[in-house]
């Protein structure tokens, strides 16, 4: 279960990106909305949804929405999730958001993230306003009936609370390092 409830403040982070830069939330103080999305390379749920992640970021960038996408998986057990492979994936697909490496898994543990993909959406006060899945149909974008993330973004941009503040995240488990 996530460590954040709706209304809780964002948990700070500072992580390296696949472009060689370091990223923190302070870099995005001017952005009204930030989405911290736990993701990875290998998970088929991520791969089913990542086109939509790119499309939504593209559609909402000018409205001040910033995605920060984080992979926390143990690359020693899942080599497809290594940092070099993350870099390759970001380049191949033209990621329009920072793709960050949480190698120690500290950020995933702090957030209580459990799945990939899993969205934590924060408003301009950096309070959690939506948590969960991107939409209700990982398999077919044309068959989506509940656009959870888009609806939450639209509500926040209109100064309203999302009608649906939380949905169960759907996807692969985060691959934790052995203790």
């Amino acid at each position, binding site marked *: 279960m996530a460590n954040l409830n709706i209304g809780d403040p964002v948990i700070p982070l500072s992580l390296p990106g696949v472009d060689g830069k370091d990223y923190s939330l302070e870099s995005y103080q001017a952005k009204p909305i930030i989405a911290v999305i736990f993701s990875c390379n290998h*998970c*088929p749920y991520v791969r*089913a949804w990542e086109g939509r992640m790119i499309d939504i970021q593209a559609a909402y960038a000018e409205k001040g929405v910033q995605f920060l996408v984080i992979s926390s998986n143990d690359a020693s057990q899942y080599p497809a999730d290594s940092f070099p492979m993350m870099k390759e994936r970001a380049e191949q697909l033209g990621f329009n958001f920072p793709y960050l490496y949480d190698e120690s898994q500290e950020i995933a543990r702090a957030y209580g993230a459990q799945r990939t993909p899993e969205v934590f959406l924060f408003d301009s006060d950096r309070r959690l306003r939506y948590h969960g899945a991107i939409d209700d149909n990982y398999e077919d974008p044309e068959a989506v009936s509940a656009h959870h993330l888009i609806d939450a973004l639209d509500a926040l941009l209109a100064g309203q609370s999302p009608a649906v503040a939380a949905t169960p995240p759907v996807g692969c488990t985060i691959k934790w390092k052995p203790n």
Partner: protein
Amino acid sequence: MQIQFLFWEGCPSHEPALERLRTVMKEEGVTAEIEIIEITTREQAQEWRFPGSPTILIDGLDIDPPPPDAFFTLTCRAYTRKDGRISPLPSPELIRRALCAAREAAWLP
């Protein structure tokens, strides 16, 4: 016809995948029993050549044969749909094709 459904509990796709397998089997009039096998360790994944959950074997053959360099471990499996998109579930068409191929192979002398 022997049908084996291999899954790992850590991936949420196995229930919808099993339902999809049962639906396609019914549509094709295939009445074979499904042997459901839970893969719980990496050693088992290696032993079964389990590229991820779910994996469906028909007469011992993977309905979507993995590449020679496939990695066998406890993970969700990615299936490539006809339109190139990735899904955690095998498509009904993939299942149907494998069932029909197995049925035809059984008829051959």
